[in-house]
């Protein structure tokens, strides 16, 4: 028996992340401007770091309760209510997780198994499909279209639904496109779902990075509240990626069951990160605003830059990504991103890493300094002119 025979077929079937394709090239290079990373360039605001450090100095180095510190769950509950009008009981409807990633994993493992179908609108964040595959369920993708500004349309959702559909994953503001779904955009989706036995896993990790209007959660529709699992966290809004702290909110029946997976596999989210997260929610609205204002300015520079270069780019109103079309160059997304990296030392990610319908696009993140963004846009322009 070969060692690989020990591995489950469904694990072996997971392809390596396509984002990593340029990894070898970048390792040989110096002074690359990376517009490929999906994390804030800002360091965590100092008072949040300080709270984490202080908790260590005080010797708070033990486990927390399984679902997270009560104070943190209360703050999350207040925050969700204040920001998005969602009411979750901090004692029974919230679990603090190891980043939103664990929340996604626990949610999928709680609700889907062999025979179920999970709908993923693509382009999408790369973790959903593999995590669904691991459960044995079947991912069913919907190709979102640039002419719809990469929003999910009700008719496309309807045609993807079958008798086996168990879950719809919604991820807006979206990675990689930067698309958002407003209240008006969500209404027709709610109309499709309200009478169906389909659960929504709503990954709202970029909710604070909404640049026009206010983020609307699908759970804010009363018909959807009990059928939605809301996932959020601290990584993007508070620049806390490395702390690994997120959370999941949902009906107490769901959360009670999900807590079992969380407690047996994870025990609890890191204590130090939870103390830092408490500080984040207590007093960091201003820091979030400062970062968001800066992202918004960079976003405009990038959208303007790509459109002027001749790589059409719809206006993304959320997250920190732009998703310009590179079809006019005649290059595939992979060739484009590899050549751009080799010839100009600017790293972007080929659009098809986020689903086949991302072919012909690239994901470019503006979580980098304005100086680097301006320089990178200059290099992209020169690259296009030389093609």
């Amino acid at each position, binding site marked *: 028996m070969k060692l690989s025979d020990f591995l489950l077929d469904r694990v072996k079937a997971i392809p390596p*992340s396509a*984002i*990593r394709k*340029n*990894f070898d090239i*970048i*390792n040989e290079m110096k002074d*690359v401007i*990376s517009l*490929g*990373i*999906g*994390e804030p*360039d800002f*360091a965590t605001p100092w008072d949040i770091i300080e709270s984490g450090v202080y908790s260590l100095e005080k010797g708070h180095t033990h486990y927390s309760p399984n679902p997270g510190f009560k104070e943190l769950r209360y703050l999350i509950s207040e925050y969700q209510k204040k920001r998005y009008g969602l009411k979750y009981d901090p004692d029974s409807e919230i679990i603090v997780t190891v980043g939103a990633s664990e929340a996604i994993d626990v949610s999928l493992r709680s609700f889907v198994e062999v025979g179920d179908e999970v709908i993923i609108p693509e382009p999408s964040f*790369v*973790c959903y499909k593999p995590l669904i595959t691991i459960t044995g369920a079947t991912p069913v993708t919907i190709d979102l279209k640039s002419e719809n500004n990469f929003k999910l349309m009700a008719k496309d959702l309807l045609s993807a639904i079958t008798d086996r559909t168990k879950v719809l994953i919604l991820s807006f503001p979206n990675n990689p496109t930067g698309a958002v779904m407003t209240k008006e955009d969500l209404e027709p989706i709610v109309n499709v779902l309200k009478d169906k036995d389909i659960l929504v896993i709503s990954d709202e990790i970029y909710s604070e990075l909404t640049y026009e209007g206010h983020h609307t959660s699908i759970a804010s529709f009363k018909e959807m509240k009990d059928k939605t699992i809301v996932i959020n966290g601290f990584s993007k809004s508070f620049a806390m990626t490395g702390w690994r702290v997120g959370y999941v909110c949902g009906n107490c029946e769901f959360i009670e069951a999900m807590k079992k997976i969380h407690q047996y596999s994870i025990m609890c989210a890191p204590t130090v990160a939870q103390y830092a997260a408490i500080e984040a929610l207590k007093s960091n609205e201003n820091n979030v605003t400062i970062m968001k204002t800066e992202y918004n*300015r*960079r976003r*405009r*520079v990038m959208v*303007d830059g790509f459109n002027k270069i001749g790589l059409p780019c719809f206006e993304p109103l959320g997250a920190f990504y732009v998703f310009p079309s590179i079809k006019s160059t005649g290059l595939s997304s992979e060739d484009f991103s590899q050549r751009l990296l080799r010839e100009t030392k600017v*790293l972007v990610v080929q659009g098809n890493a986020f689903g086949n319908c991302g072919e012909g696009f690239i994901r470019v993140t503006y979580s980098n300094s*304005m100086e680097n963004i*301006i320089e990178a846009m200059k290099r992209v322009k020169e690259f296009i002119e030389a093609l």
Partner: protein
Amino acid sequence: MKTDNDILELLERNNKLTPAQIGVMLNKEETYVSASIKDYEKHKVILGYKTLINWEKTNKDSVTALIEVKVTPQRGEGFDKIAERIYLYPEVTSCYLMSGGFDLTVVIEGKTLKEVALFVAEKLSTLESVQSTATHFILKKYKDEGTIFENRIVDDREAIIL
């Protein structure tokens, strides 16, 4: 005067930005940004464009002192006249009227400690209205005008995560 503080804040951080760049960042017309800047210059909202330099990395010798000054305000003129007599000296780089235990903070730059000390002894403390001075030399600048001089925070993000 009604001002567009977003333009001013961007320029305060980086005066090399062009009106076109600022216009894109703020979703405003370039012509509006240019006209606003001209207007702010004319009305002395924008007083000048300077460069923040870490002189410790150069071969120029200089010392900076922060001096607490207690003064007797002048009848009819308050603190303004005596402040003016102090800040008109070219050695004085900043001068602020303070609340609290003393009246004026005066920042002085000189080539050497001696030069600064002489200025205080001969020029500042001999002014009629000056009651007393306390001189504090700045030993090291960690952060000035919002800029950290030796920033140890580097972009150490992994190039590719997923």
